[in-house]
């Protein structure tokens, strides 16, 4: 089985097991959603002494992780995205970010990928709120190769970090040689007509949009941001200086996330017109991913359509 035929959560689990085998400082925490993250039962079985399921108690999981990190351990703690971020936001802010305790927080089933769990579990603001926290880094991998490299990077880094983890299988974008570097965005397609900025799930959607646009002779420059913070401003500015038109797409509310980061950079350095795709300041609902991404306006078709519109505006 090729790596990219696996679910992302399986690769998260594989990578954690690899890291925990190499390094006895790495520990894994869950808050009764380990089956969903993929770590139950495999990590639990492999490392019963370094796996802690704290139960349905996210604030406590964050505090315990802070204490473990304070003592030199490398805690990876995961739960659904809304509980991993907004539910324990003050705990993350004070016990982790402000205290500089380098905990690795993993938010699973981000945005619409929580699908049938619906609006209560559909977090559209984690990128925005985590990005707004000093000392916190914010990552969104787009495929298994990037995920694996990112998790290894996080285990070695001394910074507090947050990563979104889509659980399901996704098409490969990168390959075995991929090396995650938070200071570098990835230009996945070159073009001079419009700059298309995505992260995580929308990077997958944008691949199809870019292919469809090519058939119409529209050349979109597609930039994937595995790290929303730190944010690689140079790659964005180089592209926008060619295109003068930007579309952002994210599995998030349009306020404060990736689109927000893009607008901040452009407003200060190179004002250009930006169309932000994502939930338009609304909550989610139950549904499958194709329905939700279409309804909320960041499906491949919606991305292609926004690129067509923006192309003519520069």
């Amino acid at each position, binding site marked *: 089985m090729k790596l990219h035929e696996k679910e992302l959560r399986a690769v998260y689990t594989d990578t954690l097991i690899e890291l925990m085998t190499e390094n006895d400082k790495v520990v894994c925490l869950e808050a009764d959603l380990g089956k969903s993250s993929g770590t139950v039962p495999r990590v639990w079985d492999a490392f019963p002494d370094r796996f802690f399921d704290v139960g349905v108690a996210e604030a406590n999981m964050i505090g315990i992780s802070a204490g*473990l990190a304070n003592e030199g351990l490398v805690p990876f703690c995961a739960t659904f995205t809304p509980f991993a971020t907004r539910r324990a936001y003050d705990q993350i802010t004070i016990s982790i970010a402000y205290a500089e305790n380098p905990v690795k927080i993993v938010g699973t089933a981000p945005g619409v990928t929580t699908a049938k769990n619906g609006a209560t579990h559909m977090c559209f603001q984690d990128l925005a709120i985590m990005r707004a926290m000093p000392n916190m880094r914010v990552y969104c991998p787009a495929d298994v190769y990037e995920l694996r490299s990112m998790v290894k990077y996080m285990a070695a880094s001394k910074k507090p970090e947050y990563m979104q983890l889509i659980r399901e299988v996704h098409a490969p974008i990168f390959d075995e040689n991929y090396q995650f570097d938070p200071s570098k965005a990835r230009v996945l397609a070159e073009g001079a007509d419009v700059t298309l900025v995505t992260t995580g799930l929308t990077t997958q959607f944008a691949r199809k949009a870019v292919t469809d646009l090519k058939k119409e002779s529209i050349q979109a420059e597609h930039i994937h941001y595995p790290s929303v913070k730190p944010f690689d401003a140079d790659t964005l500015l180089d592209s926008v200086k060619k295109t003068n038109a930007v579309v952002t797409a994210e599995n998030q509310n349009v306020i404060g996330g990736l689109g927000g980061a893009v607008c901040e950079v452009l407003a200060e350095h190179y004002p250009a017109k930006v169309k932000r795709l994502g939930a338009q300041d609304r909550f989610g609902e139950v549904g499958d991913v194709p329905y939700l991404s279409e309804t909320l306006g960041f499906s491949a078709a919606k991305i292609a359509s926004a690129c067509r519109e923006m192309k003519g505006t520069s």
Partner: protein
Amino acid sequence: MERIESKDQLDQLAKEFRYIVTDIMCRAGGGHIGGSLSLVEIIITLYFRILNLKPDEPRWEDRDRFILSKGHAGPTLYTALAYRGYFPKEVLLTLNANGTKLPSHVDQVITPGVDQTAGSLGQGLSCANGIALAGKLHKRIHNVFCVIGDGESQEGQIWEAAMFAAHHKLDNLVVITDYNKMQIDAEVEKIVSLEPVVDKWRSFGWEVFEMDGHDWDDIYDTINKAMAVKDKPAMIVAHTVKAKGNTCYENRIECHFISIPDEDERNRVIGGVCVEGEEEPFEFNWTQGK
């Protein structure tokens, strides 16, 4: 360091601590006097009779850890740290000054000797859980001490942490509740009662003790008993008096945070630092105290 056993010496330390805590707050224009003064004997006992520390090596791996979850009592902890040599005593005078290393709530990043940042209530006990768990994983023999407030115990996270510590048999963890029976708005009993607090902790799987938080022998003996508990975390409910030892504020509901607008008020509050049985207010001489 020689452990301090003489009651006269301990009494003298307590007098100086109460004066210093009051004085540095007054100079800073105000502070959390009530919950700082209620902890004086407990923190002195920990830092001068119990904790195994190397002040010249604040992050020494085998040290005992101390987490002040009720982080607003920082001034009392800072005084203990200064007396133990983590930094010079005159640094205490910078409490809450611009650019200080001694903020009103404890900060592990900027203050030598502070093991865990705290201040947003309810969080420190979870961190203490992680620190105690790390001690177990590293097979170290140190103890982890944590002080929580009674008002703080209204936070749900305290009880999440209580369940976890008992489940994982964190017997290297000793937690003390500073039960001074008051919180900001009114008496704890009037806001949301903790009672029966001993039964609550016991039912959560903890070994529970009670002590007079101002009695040297009782504090020392009870902490030692708590440290000896096996297979369970230990809770000590310390009966204390808020703002103990300052006649202007002792056991008064407005003592949680005081504001010192001017020199007159400063003199009044400093003059409140009194010791039972002594006629004159106690005064600490900063110049000689160095």
